[in-house]
């Protein structure tokens, strides 16, 4: 038993050695293959040399010695191929094996005189060259497959990233309030259309402890994931501070200081914040660098809430924001928007502009807030046409004292 096992081990070792030399891709296999090619060329060339008449005896002897060495190496190679072959019979009687045998058999049968039969070795050369082409094709094939695999992995990773962004987007849209707090005689509606997957705009309705309603519209500089994160931080801070401050300007000042303290990306946000007393119609507001909202009076005229504002939030700590007060009449309508509305471009690179917005409010302001929001969004989308949306579009409309 031990002897047989040893023999088995030895043969396994020999076979793996043979496979390394014959089928391997390493430097040894390449060197061996090149050696065989050189020997084939040399032996074929030597046929021509031997046929030169009157060759000196030493030259003939040298040629005979080299022929013996060449045949020995070819025989060794032939044996290696048999050892390395998985199906030995198939190799021996196959096209490759027969050609290899033809290259050495004439020597064993006819000795040096069978030199013309050595020309059969040219067939070997053809085979080796064909093998090399085949090897190259295999390399190309493998690289192509690797590339395809990498490409597939990339596509998969991108799809995953996209899916995660989709989740983030729905989370972001979910923190925007779905409905305006129900108050008798007080109606509101809002909409946000992000430019990229993640928007930097937001709006908020806050039910304050004293029965008033806080209304926020804001626009973070830039968009994408950083803007969305900053938006979430700004919205949370503002909401929390709004519950503790009855003065809008003071609330913005506190929010600004909080944002400046946690702003590693140096982003900023424009914020318009107002508080409406639904019982009296008194509106108090403060503006941190935001586009002044429009107030459409029930009687007809449209005015901008352009009381002096302050700096955008997050840019510099310790700045103040003046608070202004406006008395609303029954049926007055407040239109809050971000610059995604007025700065929408059409394919001719013209701006939508404030005038178009004011016109829409004038013509369609008598309906419900939801209808006006829908109407303005339609108007902006129609205007932009095929031009890409470059900024988030956000609108909030509030009607006080509506029947």
């Amino acid at each position: 038993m031990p002897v047989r096992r040893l023999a088995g081990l030895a043969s396994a070792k020999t076979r793996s050695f043979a496979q390394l030399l014959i089928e391997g891709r390493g430097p040894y296999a390449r060197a061996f293959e090149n050696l065989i090619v050189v020997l084939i060329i040399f032996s074929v060339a030597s046929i021509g040399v031997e046929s030169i008449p009157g060759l000196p005896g030493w030259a003939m002897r040298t040629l005979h010695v080299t022929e013996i060495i060449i045949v020995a190496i070819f025989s060794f190679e032939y044996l290696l191929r048999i050892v390395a072959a998985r199906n030995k019979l198939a190799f021996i009687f196959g096209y490759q094996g027969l050609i290899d045998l033809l290259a050495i058999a004439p020597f064993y049968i006819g000795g040096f005189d069978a030199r013309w039969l050595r020309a059969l070795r040219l067939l070997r050369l053809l085979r080796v060259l064909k093998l090399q082409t085949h090897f190259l094709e295999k390399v190309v094939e493998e690289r192509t497959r690797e590339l395809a695999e990498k490409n597939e992995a990339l596509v998969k990773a991108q799809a995953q990233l996209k899916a995660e962004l989709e989740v983030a987007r729905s989370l972001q849209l979910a923190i925007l309030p779905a409905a305006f707090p129900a108050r008798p005689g007080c109606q509101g509606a809002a909409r946000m259309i992000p430019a990229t997957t993640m928007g930097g705009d937001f709006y908020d309705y806050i039910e304050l402890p004293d029965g008033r309603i806080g209304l926020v519209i804001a626009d973070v500089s830039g968009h994408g994931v950083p803007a969305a994160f900053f938006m979430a931080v700004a919205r949370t801070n503002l909401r929390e501070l709004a519950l503790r401050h009855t003065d809008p300007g003071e609330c913005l000042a506190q929010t600004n200081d909080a944002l400046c303290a946690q702003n590693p990306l140096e982003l900023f946000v424009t914020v318009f914040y107002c508080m409406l007393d639904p019982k009296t119609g008194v509106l108090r507001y403060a503006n941190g660098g935001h586009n002044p909202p429009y107030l459409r009076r029930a009687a007809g005229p449209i005015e901008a809430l352009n009381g002096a504002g302050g700096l955008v939030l997050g840019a510099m700590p310790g700045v103040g924001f003046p608070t202004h007060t406006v008395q609303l009449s029954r049926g007055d309508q407040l239109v809050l928007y971000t610059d995604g509305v007025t700065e929408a471009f059409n394919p001719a690179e013209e701006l939508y502009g404030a005038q178009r917005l004011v016109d829409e409010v004038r013509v369609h302001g008598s309906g419900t807030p939801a209808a006006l929001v829908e109407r303005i969004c339609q108007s902006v989308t129609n205007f932009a046409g095929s031009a890409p949306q470059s900024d988030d579009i956000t609108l909030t409309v509030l009607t006080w004292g509506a029947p």
Partner: protein
Amino acid sequence: MIVRIEALAEATCVIPEGRLDFDAAPGFQEALERVLGTAGKAPAALIIDAAALEYVSSAGLRAVLLAARAAQRAGVPFALCALQPAVREVFDLSGFSRIIAVHADRATALARARQGRS
């Protein structure tokens, strides 16, 4: 958008042309950083000449704000000049014209830079 840079004795002028929006902001920011960041050769003053600037988005404002802060840290006087009305409105609305010097034209801005140096 195109950004040109003119190095004068009293100040380096950065001249943006076209629309400074979300797509153009990174390139503009890089140009400003390059002007300020040239080691040992900080300009005497940095002036953004906005005569050919047609539009500024919030991302563009941010690039200007970051440059103003970097200039302040480097001790380089920073100013804007020759704003078109629409751009001026954006700077006024955002409150930026209250924290960044804005001059009517380049001559005024350069004169102010000379005064600051003497």
